[in-house]
């Protein structure tokens, strides 16, 4: 799997990295136990700061998507994935709120907004099947 960053995007680099790693897990390109490159090596390959990669790994580790082994290094969670916590539900609601508000102001119907959500969800799940 390839990581593709846009250094001039308004989305912070570590967020781009977190999102792409999650996408990889969602569509099956990254399976439980798959090793990830070390912080130093991934930072060098992408030409970005070590701390940026470290931050992305830390965020994913704290949420329980990644494990850090002393021997194997960073791997995708082999045990139970974090699941749908209330904390996550709150975060999801918070992030959807802004988009929903803008959609409503722009005159988008509820059904159109929901369709868009499912389309994006399906697209992420299906990306893995194409490869």
């Amino acid at each position, binding site marked *: *799997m*390839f*990581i*593709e*960053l*846009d*250094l*001039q*995007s308004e989305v912070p680099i570590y967020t781009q990295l977190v999102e792409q790693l999650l996408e*990889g897990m969602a569509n099956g390109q*990254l399976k439980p136990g798959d090793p*990830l*490159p070390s912080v*130093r*090596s*991934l*930072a*060098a*390959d*992408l*030409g*970005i*700061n*070590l701390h940026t990669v470290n931050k992305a790994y830390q965020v994913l580790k704290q949420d329980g998507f990644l494990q850090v082994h002393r021997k194997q290094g960073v791997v995708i969670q082999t045990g139970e994935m974090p699941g749908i916590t209330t904390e996550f539900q709150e975060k999801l609601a918070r992030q959807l709120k802004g988009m929903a508000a803008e959609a409503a102001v722009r005159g988008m119907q509820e059904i159109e907004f929901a369709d868009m959500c499912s389309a994006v969800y399906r697209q992420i799940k299906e990306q893995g099947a194409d490869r």
Partner: protein
Amino acid sequence: MSQLDWSFATIVFTYCVLVLIFSLQPYINAKMVLFGVYVPEENRSRLEVRSLRKRFLITGWIASIVVAAIVVSCRHVLNLERNEIMLILIAVQLLLFPLLYLQFRGNALRLKREQSWQAPVNSRRVASLSFPRRKSTIGNVWFIIPLLITGIFAVTAAIRWDEIPSTLVTHYDANGIADGFSNKDFGSVFQFNFIQVGLVLLFLFTNFSIRSSKQSLDPNNPEQSMIKQLRFRKITSISLFGLSTFIIFFIGIIQGSIIYDWPKSTIISAAIALPSILLAIIVAFSVYISRQKLDQHSDPIIKEDRYWKAGAFYYNPEDPALFVSKRTGFGWTLNYGRPLSWVVSIGILVIPLVILIFGVTHS
């Protein structure tokens, strides 16, 4: 041909090969870089750009011929031997072409200003999460073979110590008469094996640096450029292994011919065979990579003039990579923005010096 003519022919041949290699650099290297300056696609086939390369070639040739003529005509005045002439000519080449490069780099920079050349902004970065680094080169275990060769020569010398003559012939003049001698002792007998070990370590380090060098994929075509890069790494690693094994073996032959009084024909045939084998490996390697188009010209950092000091030395403290692609598009270099690079470079210069000094003081 007499012996004298032979050694003269060797000097002329070596000199011509050197001049060719240096003067053809602008043609061999990536077309997008002109004397260390990035040239935008639309400017690459312009007359000014092409004539700058041609002028470098012609100036290089004329200067080389003039220098060679001066050195050769002064040889009686300065009482120079043939091998001294050779060394002076090589030294002059190593000085002449960098100076010429800087001169032409100035011209290229002027063209850049006049025509306001700019590299396209590329803010995209791509890297594979599963780049098979370990498999990208041959394993380190392969280097046991040159080490074994070293071991065989060293152990044989130790076992046959008593048969080694107490005075060793280390040099012959152009007429084949011995004129350099040294006493038999630990240093004079085993210095060759230290050089061999040092070289094996250097080749091992190179193999390691190929493996750990930055991915540098083309953001527009990551999959293809990754396949190309892996093949380039593998073939480079294999060629290096071949080179190292033959060089180590050749040093063993030199040692053997000095300490066991082997017939001179052995060393002469080895001296002809080895350069031929090395040249064959290098030519085969170059033909293969150009046929398969296994260059790294799509690496985005090649275009960034500001990170290349004097157009050739990568200096970027913000890049955490230690080993990066060379600007020529073939091979790898160090990121001098990282202190470790300086340690490595000084180490590579110092270790052979230490071995050399050790050899000299112990013989």
